[in-house]
């Protein structure tokens, strides 16, 4: 069962529990939890078979018992490198913006990009193509990729239209996927757009809300923004809500490359439809999950996490509010992760306990700060700082010079915390600002990836 029974990471079980102030190991081991409690044993059984491994690491294994406090929990998901036979077939929909602004080079490159996608797909995969402007057209209804030339002919008939009806475009694409939906597919829409929604339902919350509905049906949307006109906040919001990826494409000639990259990512997805539920014990509240929008309930919170690719890792950083209580060891939260596992081919459930020892000894608390979690907190705060800078630049509340200073600070922090890729992106943004270019779109992507805590893949 649980490969995940994770209590504070640094120590081994016994030492941790023996600090209990009451009789150490004895009562522990004699309890009724003989099987579930030995991490070494259970992990061996789980890790070899499942695509994912979940760990919950607390920012401090001790908390103060005499008054309320806040504590962080780092939930990390590690995808195994193992693959169960052939890759999962895709149920893919390309949702293409063909508004007036796409005329010329951009549309030509998009056609080429779609052609690449067709080339990379196999007869087991299902493809549909939806194009939207004011009107939404199903260029190709969902079908197996058998006659590749015929599909390409459809693609080549794409022509530009007028305005941008993003909402209906997404809805039409999602219904194509839903038509052949199966848990045995990686169900994904690639949304490509170059502008703000100008027709149909246009407001952020309605669009993102609809994306959330699609996600609850197992349909993930990757957002690809092209050029300088699109709304990065909206596209990143869609990707965030959906657990898909977000790309910013600066030049038309890069469109095919980005499509291919995304497709290769999809072909190595090992766990999909990740839902994390945080069940809270009494005297514990979830304050936030950094960079994500959980839904809250009475003593629980739920959040959708992005699909995970082979060999990659993702994380979520939780902040808990803990109340005062009699000293002792408590499970303050129980984490449940449900996902579709491509390796086992089954829905899987991973569990982890967040256990802390509450003590009156402030010194004990002070001496046991977990550096790994501390580092993730730094990164999360850097990401928030970046978000503020981006917002300031967009609303022109921050002058370019001040923005550069802010970005340099953030860059240093990211560098120190080992987020080299993101530090480089920020550095590039700094260079671009100096050349007078706008950088918000790139940085929104940086923020998104920082918040996902994504590595490898």
């Amino acid at each position, binding site marked *: 069962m649980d490969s995940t029974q994770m209590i504070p990471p640094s120590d081994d*079980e016994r030492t941790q529990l023996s600090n209990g102030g009451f009789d150490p190991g004895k009562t522990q081991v004699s309890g009724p939890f003989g099987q579930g409690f030995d991490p070494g044993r259970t992990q061996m059984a789980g890790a070899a078979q499942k695509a994912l491994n979940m760990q919950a690491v607390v920012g401090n294994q001790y908390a103060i018992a005499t008054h309320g406090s806040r504590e962080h929990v780092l939930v990390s998901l590690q995808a195994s490198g193992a693959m169960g036979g052939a890759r999962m077939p895709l149920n893919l929909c390309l949702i293409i913006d063909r508004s007036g602004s796409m005329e010329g080079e951009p549309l030509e490159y998009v056609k080429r990009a779609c052609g690449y996608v067709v080339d990379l797909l196999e007869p087991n995969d299902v493809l549909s193509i939806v194009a939207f402007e004011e009107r939404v057209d199903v260029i190709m209804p969902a079908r197996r990729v058998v006659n590749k030339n015929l599909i390409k002919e459809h693609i080549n008939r794409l022509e530009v239209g007028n305005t941008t009806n993003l909402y209906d475009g997404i809805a039409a694409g999602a219904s194509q996927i839903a038509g052949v939906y199966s848990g045995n597919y990686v169900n994904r829409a690639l949304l490509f757009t170059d502008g703000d929604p100008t027709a149909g339902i246009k407001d952020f919350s309605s669009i993102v809300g609809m994306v959330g509905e699609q996600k609850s049906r197992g349909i993930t949307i990757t957002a690809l923004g092209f050029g300088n006109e699109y709304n990065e906040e909206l596209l990143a919001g869609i990707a965030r809500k959906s657990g898909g990826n977000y790309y910013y494409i600066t030049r038309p000639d890069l469109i095919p490359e980005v499509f291919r990259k995304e497709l290769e990512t999809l072909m190595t997805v090992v766990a999909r439809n990740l839902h994390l539920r945080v069940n809270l014990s*009494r*005297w514990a509240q979830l304050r936030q999950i950094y960079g994500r929008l959980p839904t809250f*309930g009475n003593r629980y919170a739920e959040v959708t996490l992005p699909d995970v690719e082979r060999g990659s890792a993702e994380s979520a950083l939780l902040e808990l509010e803990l*109340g005062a209580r009699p000293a*002792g060891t408590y499970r303050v939260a129980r984490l449940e992760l449900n996902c579709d596992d491509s390796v086992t081919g089954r829905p899987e459930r991973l569990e982890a306990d967040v256990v802390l020892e509450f003590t009156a000894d402030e010194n004990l608390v002070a001496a046991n700060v977990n550096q790994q979690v501390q580092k993730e907190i730094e990164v999360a705060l850097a990401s928030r700082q970046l978000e503020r800078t981006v917002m300031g630049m967009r609303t022109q509340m921050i002058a370019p010079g001040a923005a550069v200073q802010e970005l340099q600070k953030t860059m240093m922090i990211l560098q120190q915390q080992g987020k080299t890729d993101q530090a480089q992106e920020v550095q590039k943004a700094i260079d671009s600002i100096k050349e007078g270019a706008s950088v918000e779109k790139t940085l929104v992507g940086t923020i998104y990836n920082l918040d996902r805590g994504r590595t490898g893949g």
Partner: protein
Amino acid sequence: MLENDMEKTQLTDTGATQTMPGVGTEATQQALGVTCPVCHTTNAPGETYCCDCGFLLASAREGFEIAAEQPGVAAELVPKLVEPSTGREFALNPGPNTIGRENADVLLTHPSVSRKHATLTVADGKYLLEDVGSTNGTFAGGKKIEPGEQAEVEPGTELMFGSAVLKLEAPPEDAAVSAAEAVREVEEAEEREKLSEESVAVEEAAEEPSPPVEVEPEQHEAADQAEAAEIPVEPGVEARFEATPEQTLEPPVEAVEVHEELPTLARLVAKPDGQEHQIRPGENTIGRRPANSVVIPDLYVSGSHAVINASDAGFTITDVGSTNGTFVNGERLTPNEPRELQDGDELTLGQSVFRFTI
């Protein structure tokens, strides 16, 4: 792991059977639930952690005692913001509580909430709400609060920050009063009983202190009564007071007289009203409950909060495990560790501030 196993075998031999269902002859016990010593929730056998408060059940072996003061219960008497749609609760602290999307006391991660959205100040039983320049506005009972305006809001009012709706809930005003009444009733009942037993008790007292068992049933009753009324009366606290022989056995009227005969060595002067509490030789218990020598009717003060000890050697104060802590000149005391008091020290208990004067 090997060691673990060894420990396990050892344990089987050392009377740990009590918490070990499913082993041989103990099998019948399995059907019994396990009552959590912290929150008294009954758990299914085999649970590792209490399903309600998360307490590691196996760590509660015989002789394990939970601190008399149960912070969780006291926390229920604190004002809070409740999100009706989810049941989520945000406890409010005395003084200003920031509300917003980032680094706020009441953290609302909804996008319609500004980073710094509003401040809700809890002071003197009043609730003052101020918008601190939010984008989408702050509303109380449907009425917009203009930036800079400090609006007093009544408990029960629906507050809106952007599109997040929260309801202000305050502990019933008479909670403290009824708590006090409940305690008093119980005490009176005990006193009556004590009085009737007095002649016997006094004789016995000469030889041995009255065993706490005698008063126990009533304390349980008291606790039940209190729980029903959501009042934080903790069993055990009374027991601590009553178990002290001289306090238990003397009728309370006399006890008061005794106090009056003792000289006042120092005073706690309340800020800002100047009300004085006398500190007398020996142990001076401080708390919300009427049984204390210094009674502070402040909801943020625990039933049994701190003790000031006055002796020839000087004065010390000890926090006895209060929920909201005891502060001397702004410095929080470590519970159960005495600290010396000097003339002029400032004491903070809950929302109440005192000057200690000799």
